[in-house]
């Protein structure tokens, strides 16, 4: 029967083409939307994890309460021993020390006085230890615009926009003016080794990356660090594992009332990431649902019109003795076939478009000039295994549903009236 129905669908384009197109468009849009939303969410998560939250993060309790102010006076002291302990307890996680800081960057004129000055947000990361993956996490090699990466302490990277604003080139020196861990004034002369483009409006406005040893000497933070971040070595965030690790660590200090006792937070505990991910997922699901609903209504309507058009055909078939149940089931099978064809084509086109958006991306930079969120400036889609069925199944089901609803009219036909209808 399937072959017979398929022949009918292929030969009678008037009853299938429009429906296939509708399903195709709906599925394609669903797939593209899903891949797009997933890409933005994943990229934002990755950006946040690499720059700010890690997959896990250890700070002192007081630091955690005010983390966005980067209060280095509340930093972890004795951080080397802590990192050693973390590595021993969780060898499948890469633990790294970081110091985040804010300060002024002051560029001198030939007399040594201020030529240009601007506020900057800084990251002090392990740039020079062998085995350190921090350069990779910050994507330093690929985002380098001018100059070269730092090769020795005292060399730093600054954001390209920042450098252009102050007319700074690689090789120029400047003074970092900040505050030590003890609150004193901190001054350090540093050299720009290169400039980078982070691809995030927040970072490109004024960011500086220095080696952690430079920060520790500038801010009087020997054997201290503001944060210790943990990254799963496979690069993928595993929330269940993160919960286990965090709970095990925090239980050691549960009874301590010391405001400087360390606390471990997972990615979703920080910066509202859990709410962000849940919200984004909910929005995505809602939009997919709306698409499916709309598609179903359109297909139901199309099915009704089809039913009207095929009124005589069903009448003849009933008159010839075909059972109503059988006619209804052929309608359902037709829906299944049309839905399958439309969904396959729609999914293929959708994935093709999503792949294109993954490679090329969409530049949101102009819209985010004054943004303060850590969002990527270029939005890219991502193709995941889910994309292969997120549109396919609803496309198929909506076609079947549409036909099922429109086919109910068959049961209202009365055999006694058939010949009278056919006379017309």
């Amino acid at each position: 029967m399937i072959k017979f129905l398929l022949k009918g669908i292929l030969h009678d384009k008037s009853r299938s083409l429009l429906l296939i197109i509708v399903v195709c468009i709906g599925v394609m849009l669903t797939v593209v939307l899903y891949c797009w939303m997933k890409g933005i969410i994943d990229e934002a998560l990755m950006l946040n994890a690499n720059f700010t939250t890690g997959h896990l993060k250890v700070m002192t309790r007081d630091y955690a309460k005010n983390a966005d102010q980067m209060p280095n006076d509340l930093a972890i002291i004795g951080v080397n021993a802590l990192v050693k302990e973390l590595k021993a307890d969780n060898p499948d996680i890469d633990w790294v020390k970081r110091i985040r800081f804010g300060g002024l960057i002051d560029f001198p004129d030939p007399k040594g006085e201020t030529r240009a000055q601007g506020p900057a947000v800084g990251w002090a990361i392990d740039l020079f230890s062998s085995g350190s993956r921090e350069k990779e996490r910050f994507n330093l090699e690929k985002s380098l615009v001018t100059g070269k990466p730092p090769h020795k302490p005292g060399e730093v990277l600054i954001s390209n926009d920042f450098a252009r604003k102050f007319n700074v080139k690689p090789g120029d020196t400047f003074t970092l003016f900040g505050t030590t861990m003890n609150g004193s004034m901190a001054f350090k002369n540093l050299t720009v080794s290169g400039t980078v483009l982070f691809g995030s409006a927040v970072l490109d406005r004024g960011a500086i990356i220095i080696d952690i040893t430079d920060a520790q000497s500038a801010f009087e933070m020997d054997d201290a660090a503001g944060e210790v971040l943990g990254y799963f070595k496979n690069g993928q965030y595993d929330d269940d594992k993160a919960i286990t690790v965090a709970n095990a660590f925090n239980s050691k200090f549960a009874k301590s009332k010391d405001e400087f006792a360390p606390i471990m937070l997972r990615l979703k505990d920080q910066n509202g990431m859990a709410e962000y991910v849940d919200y984004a997922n909910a929005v995505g699901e809602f939009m997919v649902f709306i698409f499916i609903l709309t598609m179903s209504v359109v297909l139901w309507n199309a099915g009704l019109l089809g039913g009207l058009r095929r009124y005589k055909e069903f009448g003849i078939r009933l008159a010839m003795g075909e059972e109503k149940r059988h006619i209804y089931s052929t309608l359902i099978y037709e829906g299944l076939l049309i839905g399958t064809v439309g969904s396959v084509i729609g999914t293929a086109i959708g994935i093709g478009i999503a792949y294109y958006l993954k490679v090329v991306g969409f530049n949101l930079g102009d819209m985010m000039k004054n943004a303060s969120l850590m969002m990527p400036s270029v939005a890219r889609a991502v193709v995941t295994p889910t994309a292969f069925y997120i549109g396919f199944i609803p496309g198929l089901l909506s076609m079947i549903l549409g036909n099922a609803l429109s086919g109910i009219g068959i049961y209202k036909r009365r055999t006694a009236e058939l010949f009278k209808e056919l006379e017309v």
Partner: protein
Amino acid sequence: MMKRSVTTALICFLTVAIFGQNANMILEKVDQNMSSKNRIFQSTMTIYGKRNSRNISSKTYTEGNKKSFTEYLSPASEQGNKMLKLENQLWIYSLSTDRIIQISGHLLRQSVMGSDLSYEDMMDDRKLTDIYSAKVTGSEKIDDRICYVLELTAKVEDVAYYSQKIWVDEERFIPLKKELCAKSGQLLKRMELKEIQRIQGRWFPTCATYKDMLKDGKGTEFRMTNIQFDQTIPDYIFTKAALKQ
């Protein structure tokens, strides 16, 4: 009836005028004690941090409210650093980097070395009568000293604190306590002035405790020693060249 109303109104007007005049007179006497043509003093600032406390000692030259030069003497990490204020600009010299860095604008509201004082607090030495209009609101006792309670409201635009409430020692005309507020009425800082001494014919508080009410902590104690008023200060002190000497 009419006569009584006019008399009452006249008495009220006179009372306000007298009290207003009294408030201004009190403020002028405070300015006579607190302000001077110039000052040279050594000071120790004790900053109570979350983990420890630090003592920073310095020597300061000030002339009026427009010029100020400070050299930090200890601890070793601060030794050799200097600050110069001219008009509304501030320059900081760092010995370790041999750089002069200019600070201006909103940065002047930042804390000095993690203390509860801002650069503005340290620099603003204008006479209260120039900046504020005052009224006496009552009388209270602080540390067994009877004080006028004055409420000050800014009459110029460029002030760090829109309003102040000050407790002025009735006998010595020295503020013993100050509450510094924003335009919204939010209390920003509290100051207590102690160890009032007689120096060169004037009363002067040699110890002040600042507390930033917007943050936790025990505050900052600022203690002055070797205060000299109205001395001859060489002009070169208040130049950028002096920062590098």
